[in-house]
């Protein structure tokens, strides 16, 4: 490429809430560096652009693509493949792209239940009970909609991914740091991390940054944050609050536990962990203070929705990835 031309930057949102895009804008004046160093060619949230424009670009012509959102529809998958083809560096950006995040909790239910909930529950005004169709005939011709998959997938379950940037959303200071890094690389001042690396995060867990006082753990009862007023000094788990911090990758500066709210695990598994939920389950269960099955179960009743709480962000990224109902279509 010719010297005066700035390297190209793209950002895309698949199945996501948009928080990631906002997080990027939330890096304040650093956003100017992005503009100074990159030519933004594709960023649905921030600018107008058409898929066909991207399709027209030569392969690998985009240097850096931040892909946020999980893969839940044929459109998501199509764009994932497209961005992979057109980008040199494809970053799974944010929890959705990395591990499925909230959208992937749908993997616990069937597609039908999902649609029923969306289109028939009280919050929806849908008297003739219409369902979205993949293709509809209208006088002007046929219009189509992408098809929904029954199982939400992470980006790297669809296309190879170069780097992962966890967080829901990733912390702005981490984003800024990563942008800096890439710019440094462009200026030849730094090396890229090894492919497949997790960037913009630590490699220990949230407890590492958590200011709360920690002692040995013995859990006699699980409680929920809305029902008790936890001691501000002491580890939340020791107070019976299922805090996911101990299994969750650090990098967020333990914002939630510091603020008195348990970590819910948005930064995903720690380095080298195969299944986030298994780690959390194993750790928490191990310190239940009882040897009697009945009492153990009674203590576990304190966790009303274990799968939801333990795999809140990691369902798609987990070993089983989805519940049976989701796998068995219909």
């Amino acid at each position, binding site marked *: 490429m010719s010297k005066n031309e700035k390297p190209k930057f793209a950002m895309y949102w698949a199945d996501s809430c948009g928080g990631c895009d906002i997080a990027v804008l939330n890096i304040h004046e650093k956003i100017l560096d992005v503009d100074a160093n990159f030519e933004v060619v594709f960023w649905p949230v921030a600018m107008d652009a058409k898929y066909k424009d991207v399709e027209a670009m030569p392969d690998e012509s985009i*240097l850096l693509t931040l892909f946020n959102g999980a893969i839940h529809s044929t459109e998501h998958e199509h764009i994932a493949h497209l961005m992979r083809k057109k980008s040199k560096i494809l970053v799974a950006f944010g929890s959705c792209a990395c591990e499925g995040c909230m959208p992937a909790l749908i993997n616990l239910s069937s597609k039908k239940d999902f649609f029923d909930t969306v289109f028939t529950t009280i919050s929806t005004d849908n008297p003739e009970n219409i369902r979205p169709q993949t293709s509809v005939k209208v006088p002007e011709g046929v219009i189509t909609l992408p098809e929904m998959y029954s199982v939400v997938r992470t980006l790297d379950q669809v296309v*190879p*991914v170069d780097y992962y940037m966890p967080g829901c959303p990733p912390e702005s200071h981490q984003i800024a740091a990563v942008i800096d890094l890439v710019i440094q690389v*462009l200026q030849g001042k730094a090396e890229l991390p090894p492919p497949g690396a997790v960037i913009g995060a630590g490699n220990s867990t949230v407890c590492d940054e958590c200011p709360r006082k920690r002692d040995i753990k013995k859990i006699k009862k699980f409680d929920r944050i809305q029902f008790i007023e936890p001691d501000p000094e002491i580890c939340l788990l020791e107070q019976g609050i299922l805090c996911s911090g101990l299994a969750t990758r650090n990098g967020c500066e333990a914002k939630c536990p510091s603020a008195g709210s348990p970590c819910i695990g948005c930064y995903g598994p720690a380095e080298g962990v195969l299944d986030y939920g298994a780690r959390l*389950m194993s750790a928490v269960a191990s310190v239940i203070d009882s040897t009697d099955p009945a009492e153990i179960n009674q203590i576990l009743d304190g966790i009303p929705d274990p*799968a939801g709480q333990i795999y809140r962000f990691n369902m798609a990224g987990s070993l089983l990835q989805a*519940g049976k109902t989701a796998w068995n279509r219909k």
Partner: protein
Amino acid sequence: MNNNETFEPVIIGFTCNWCSYRAADTAGTARVKYAPNIRLIRLMCSGRLDPTFVLKALANGADAVLITGCHPGDCHYVEQNYKALRRFHLLKRVLTQMGIEPGRLKLVWASAAEGAILAAEFDKFINEVRALGPLNWPLQKQKTFSTPALEEVAA
């Protein structure tokens, strides 16, 4: 889709080095017969049982998982089998929520002497799983990485 009469489940069984694995040996030495559907893995203690192992086995094609260890109070590491017990109960709850029949995960205590008893438990479990039918969980695709070529961009 599955014809149960000919369905032969594959079951992964986790054993502890001191009681249940020895029990399996005892069964062997005593020539106690059981169905060949169960394949054992030896751990030092049921306390080593990481839920990851169970999830891995189920995700990779096992129809069920059996966890075994020393009898409560008899653990050769004093009390570690209780940790296995606690994890077992939480894991079971999670799996149930994921639509996996509770009958596909079982915990059995067996002392080194209880070869025949363990063998009987094997058969019992195998039959229970046979009745449940195959789990055939969709196999996961391994992650693959492509190294980005950046040399010419840098500078």
